[in-house]
């Protein structure tokens, strides 16, 4: 069965698999600093399945949010209305993130390299960029101050690159003990979850190594979609297929979300059809919530 056929045959999309794989890695007692897009989807899926008490913190200041639909922005009304408390943004970054209260931070970006450094700033030179991306937002400090970070992003040869154009968020730098040498005391990106596989850093070199393939995904597919000579763990695990419950919970959440976001459109405006992910780096697999440019904030 060819890769394409495998994916076509599977009763779930690779983006769904990515969200489910990420959700499974979260624990009921985790305190997550959640970005919009794939992280928000994964965290809320975890909350609606195996981790009902998980604490979701959004950088807008909402602590313990339990949204019924996914927020489009980091500060949708749904978040504040369902949160245990909402604090100011300076307090959020000082007491909650920098204060070391977060067990898992989520990151994504336009480019990730083999030491899990992330670029969400520019493609091309900083001063004369080919593509000006939204920027770091909370990411530079999420990368350094959460006890560990999980990277969730769709995998392509253009996004998984040998060396990022710009280090917005420091992962393992040049590898080895580079974090320690900078005085960073947290574990850093301990997991990378893509739509194809799960990667973890080698304990010593800190280079990302594939530790599990998602169902139907081949080594070749991963190699093809990675911009450096990617290594595979031995033995190599296989991600279990999504359960019926996971899939239906995920799809219900997305349906509610898409319905909610289409409501309340400006009176008198004639909106275009829902925009396609036409950004050069956007695969647009999950409409509205999968734009990689929007993931970190």
């Amino acid at each position: 069965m060819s890769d394409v056929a495998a994916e076509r045959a599977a009763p779930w999309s690779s983006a769904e698999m990515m969200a489910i794989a990420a959700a499974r890695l979260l624990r009921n007692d985790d305190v997550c600093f959640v970005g919009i897009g794939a992280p928000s989807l994964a965290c809320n899926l975890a909350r609606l399945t195996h981790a009902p008490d998980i604490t979701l913190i959004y950088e807008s200041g909402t602590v313990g949010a339990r949204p019924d639909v996914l927020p489009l922005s980091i500060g949708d009304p749904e978040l504040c209305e369902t949160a245990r408390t909402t604090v100011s943004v300076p307090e959020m970054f000082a007491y909650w993130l920098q204060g070391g209260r977060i067990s898992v931070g989520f990151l994504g970006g336009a480019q990730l390299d083999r030491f899990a450094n992330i670029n969400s700033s520019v493609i091309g030179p900083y001063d004369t960029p080919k593509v000006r991306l939204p920027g770091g937002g909370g990411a530079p400090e999420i990368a350094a101050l959460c006890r560990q970070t999980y990277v969730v992003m769709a995998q392509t040869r253009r996004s998984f690159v040998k060396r990022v154009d710009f280090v917005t968020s420091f992962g393992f730098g040049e590898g080895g003990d580079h974090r320690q040498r900078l005085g960073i005391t947290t574990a850093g990106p301990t997991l990378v979850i893509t739509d194809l596989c799960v990667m973890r850093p080698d304990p010593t070199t800190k280079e990302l190594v594939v530790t599990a393939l998602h169902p139907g995904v081949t080594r070749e597919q991963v190699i093809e979609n990675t911009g450096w000579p990617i290594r595979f763990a031995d033995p190599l695990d296989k991600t279990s297929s999504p359960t019926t419950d996971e899939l239906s919970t995920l799809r219900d959440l997305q349906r509610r979300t898409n319905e909610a976001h289409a409501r309340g459109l400006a009176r008198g405006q004639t909106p275009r059809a829902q925009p396609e992910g036409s950004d050069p780096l956007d695969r647009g697999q999950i409409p509205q919530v999968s734009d990689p440019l929007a993931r970190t904030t």
Partner: protein
Amino acid sequence: MTEFLSLHDAIAAYVPDASTVALEGFTHLIPFAAGHEIVRQRKRDLTLVRMTPDLIYDQLIGMGCARKLVFSWGGNPGVGSLHRLRDAVEHAWPRPLEIEEHSHAAMAAAYAAGAAGLPCAILRGYAGSDLVAHNTNIRSVECPFTGETLAAVPALRPDVAIVHAQRADRAGNVLIEGITGVQKEVVLAARSAIVTVEEIVPDLRAPSPNSTVLPHWTITAVALAPGGARPSYAHGYYPRDNAFYIAWDSISRDRDQFTRWMREHVLESSTSVEAVA
């Protein structure tokens, strides 16, 4: 004492060309009506400060009001790029835009330092990030107790802060509820502060002794602007217009279409766009 002004008069009086202006509101309570008034008054050479430029700065930048942008995340949340911001940075359209780029943590701390009368903020920030090399306003200090190196950024002290709030009382005291972002900080950090409000009421109806209330003597001018945060939202008043945020992606992608939209909905609107949008 707080002046009660029309939005037109408040912007005319306190937002001169070439001033440093911070319209704040973290997703919530973004002062769109005030931003549109700045566009209508054709302000020029502004230094725009804001953590998340959002659609309102996309509009100001696209209309050529800005010389410089100080920011930490410049996207359309959950949707993608701010096309006017990108066009300005990538192609200098309609004019070149200087940028000073920070992280959220640093900008939030810089506003807090401004409110606190400090010259700088310190934080565990920017560790290993290339942002340091591209922004001379990111420096460091050594902790005099542990010897650790901490990042330092200068306090933000805009000439004028503009925020939107739920309500003011007749003395000019202002209540902000819900996601309060950096609004208190920017008002206290700025040399003058304009607050647009949903309502002016006899009693603020603060639900708690600890509610976020800005006393009238911290505010320069209050302007009534019901719906003044649309398509952003006002907790307790109206929801976020997420569909408009999604629609903005296509409205703003093309220069001509953007300009047409701005002419129709902002420039030629006697009131601001939130009345129609």
